[in-house]
Each structure stands twice: as structure tokens, then as C-alpha cells.
């Protein structure tokens, strides 16, 4: 699909892509701190409704899903910490990456 859209460009002389997930690479490797969501504190989980969603709204990289519970895509999350800062229920905490194996 992606390939087909650009196949008419016979001479690839400049850098071109189509808007797709991961177009800029797996930016998750940039992270020094990892946001961890505690569902028991999350308003959406507690009410079982799509409420609040400030983490999804504020994430500058679109790596948090608008779901119950919100899911964080660690392949692309850069670890900026905005979600943790904005969460009114303090359901998200930033943990040092050295705590995780991978």
C-alpha cells in the first residue's frame, strides 16, 4: 500500500515518505524515563467511560490511545512526561528506564 503510493516517483532524488506510524523511526529509544499508568487511579477506568483522556489529548507524539484504559505505545513514546504532568488523577508516574530490562 505505502509502496504503491510512491511507486510513480521513479527517481528518488529527495527524501519523501507518506504519513505512517513510525515514519521517523522508533523514537522510543530516545526515552530516559518511562510513563507507567496505574489503571486503579485512572478516571476513565474507574467510571468505565471515555472521560478525561487528557493524557491522550496532550501527548505530543500521539502515542497514547483513546481507550479504556489508555494504552501507551512504548515503541514511539519519547518519555517527555507531559502525560504524567497533566493527569489530574496522578495515575501516570515517570520511572527511570534503568528499572526496565530490554
Amino acid at each position, binding site marked *: 500500500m505505502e509502496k504503491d*503510493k*510512491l511507486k510513480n*516517483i521513479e527517481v*528518488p532524488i*529527495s527524501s*519523501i515518505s*507518506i504519513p505512517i506510524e*513510525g515514519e521517523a*523511526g522508533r523514537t522510543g529509544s530516545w526515552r530516559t524515563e518511562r510513563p507507567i499508568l496505574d489503571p486503579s487511579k485512572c478516571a476513565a477506568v474507574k467510571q468505565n467511560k471515555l472521560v478525561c483522556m487528557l493524557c491522550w489529548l496532550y501527548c505530543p507524539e500521539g502515542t497514547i490511545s483513546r481507550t479504556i484504559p489508555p494504552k501507551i505505545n512504548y515503541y514511539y513514546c519519547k518519555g517527555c512526561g507531559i502525560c504524567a504532568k497533566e493527569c489530574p488523577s496522578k495515575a501516570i508516574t515517570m520511572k527511570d528506564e534503568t528499572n526496565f530490562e530490554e
Partner: protein
Amino acid sequence: MSEKLVLSGNHAAAHACKGARVQVIAAYPITPQSPATELLSRFVETGQLNAKYVCVESEHSAMTVCIAASSTGARTFTATSANGLALMHEQLHWAAGARLPIVMACVNRAVAAPWNVWTDNQDSISQRDTGWIQLYCEDNQEIYDTILQAYKIAEQIYCPVMVCYDGYILSHTLMPVEIIDQNAIDEFLPPFKPYVTLDPDDPKVLNLVTFPWIRHDHPHIEKFGGYPEIRYKLQQTLRSSFDVIERVDKEFGEKFDRQYGIFKEYMCDEADYIILAMGSLASEATVAAEILYEEGYTVGVLSLKLFRPFPAKQLATFAKQSAASTFIVIDRNLSYGYEGALCTDFKAALYTHHVQKNVHGYLLGIGGRDVNVDQIMEIVHKSRKAIEAGQLDKETEWINIMK
């Protein structure tokens, strides 16, 4: 039907853009460029040119608008000088790396500090490493013709072109200029066909973050390679663009009876000394050569039109076949701490191609100080005396300066 008008260099440039049916113009006024863009804005206002004229707050924005417009497939133009061109610097790299065939006029002016509005080539020479093609003009007809040629070159190889002409000496001096019939221009210069366009209905990411390595996680990104591949292609295109540049010039010559070549030879055949220079300075040198000939000295002039890509092989071949023992390179620019840019490049070209000639560099007319025939004759005599005294490796000398 073509017509002859008496035009300044700036107005000749504007008429060329009108002939080229430029679609987007973005420019910020600066002396001595302003009359070019003023006339273009009048063309747009009076409906003589169907284009969008974007008023911007700086030269950086002017080039950015041209980049955006060119990305959507529009034929674009801007013009600037000196500090304005310096402010564009970042976006000049972008235009070249994004392979956008933008054409701009650089009305050559000295770069501050101290403030100076007069001509020298320091502004465009300082941008020589950005990946833009640079063409220098000797008179107003050449400005008009070169801009038309520039679009044809740019749009064939997807590289931006800077058309350079000296401030005041050309920009504000009136000369007869033949304006080519619109149908004939349309035949020479077909509409711009972009190889990729920015279109909201078919979203693309242009000039994305491109890694040092080749991405294998997305097949379509993989095929473009990494940053080095993109830059390698730009260099390959420029180094192999001489054919296109000469072909466009030849076609222009066949259609309109004016042809310039990548450099122009004047009285070079039997010359003992050959002056190498660019722009109006080379023009002035031809007058000096004539007077020197009457005095019994055979001096030729080589006027370089194409400075980037640098025609090293062509110049070296010319030098090799020439009977001249000595090349006198007169620069109206300076790579501070060394010498004139043309002098350095010319010497490197000779060395690369194993051509042994004496090369003497001179600096003249920096900051618009008047260049006249007497100074050019003085330069030739200085070199002649040095050679006769056996001083072959003369250092670059600054002429007509209070020391």
C-alpha cells in the same frame, strides 16, 4: 513578435520572470535588488502576470515561501542582495537538498559590516557551498536570457539556480534588451512538471528526518537511502549537469541567436596572458585587452559564467590547449584569510588535471570601488614584469587600495 526595450538589469530580470510565467514571487526589498521585485509586483497588480506575489517580513521567509510554493508544483522566483542573501542561507541549503527548481536573482552587493550598498561578489560567493547552480552575467540582455535558461536548467535536473549580476553597474544601468515573443518563450520553456508535489488530497512527508543509515523497516523509505545518499545524488546531479546547461544554452542560441557557453573567450587564441574574471569585471577586462593589444601585448579574457558547478575539467582543458603562459585571475570577492574564490578553484582545477600554468590572483573592486581599464592594465603589467623577472609564484595582490 519580439521587441527591444531600454531596461535596467533589474527590470530585465523582471521581464524575464514575466516571460517565464512565474507563478509565485516572494521577496523582501533590499538595495540594489528592489526595482526588480517592484516591477514584478506591478506586473502582478496590473494583471500582466498571473502570479501570486507574497509580501514577507524577511529574506528567510521569502525563500521559505518559495520552497513551499515550489513543493506544490509552482514556478517560483525571488531576488535579493548581500545581507538579505546571507539571511536566506539556511533555506538555501533546504531548497537544494529538497531538489526544488527555484530561480533567484542575486544582485551582487558587498556584505556588511561596515554598511555598503555597492557591488562585489562576496554575497553570492559566500553561498557557493549550498548546492545552488550559480550563473554570472555581463550585461542586461544576458540577465534576461539567463533567467529564462535558468528555469529550463533547474526544472530538468531539479536544482535551484542563482542568477548573479552586479549591483548598479548592471542592476541600475539602462541598456537595450530584446524581449522575446511570449509564444516563442512558451515553446522554449514548457510548464514546470514537479517530480513530487505536496497535495492535501494525497498527503506526503517531504524531507523527513533522514537517518545516517539506510532504513530497512519501511520499504519506501529504504529506497531513498539515508542522508548521505540524498546528498550524494545532489552532488552527482550537479557534477553531471554540464551537458544539460550547455544543451539549454545551445537550444536558446538556435532559437534566439544568443548563446553564452559556460565561459566566454575573448581574444584568447594567441594570447600570452589570459585574464579570468566573472560578471561586469570581465566585460571591463575586454576593453583593457583591446588597448593592450594596440600597445603590442596579447592579452585574452576568459569570462566565467558558470561558477557552480565549477567547470574544472573544461577550464583545465582550455588552459592546456592555450598558448598562454600565465592566467591572471581577478576576483571581486575574497575568502578571508586566503584569496579570491575563483583563483583558488581555478588553481585546483589546473592541479587536478595536471596542467602547469602560472596563476596570479588579484583583488579588485571590493565594496564597489570603481573598476576601470587602467587598473586592469596595471594588473597585466604587474604580472608581466613578475614573470619576466622570474617570479612565477606571485601571491594574491590587492589592487587600488590605500595600504
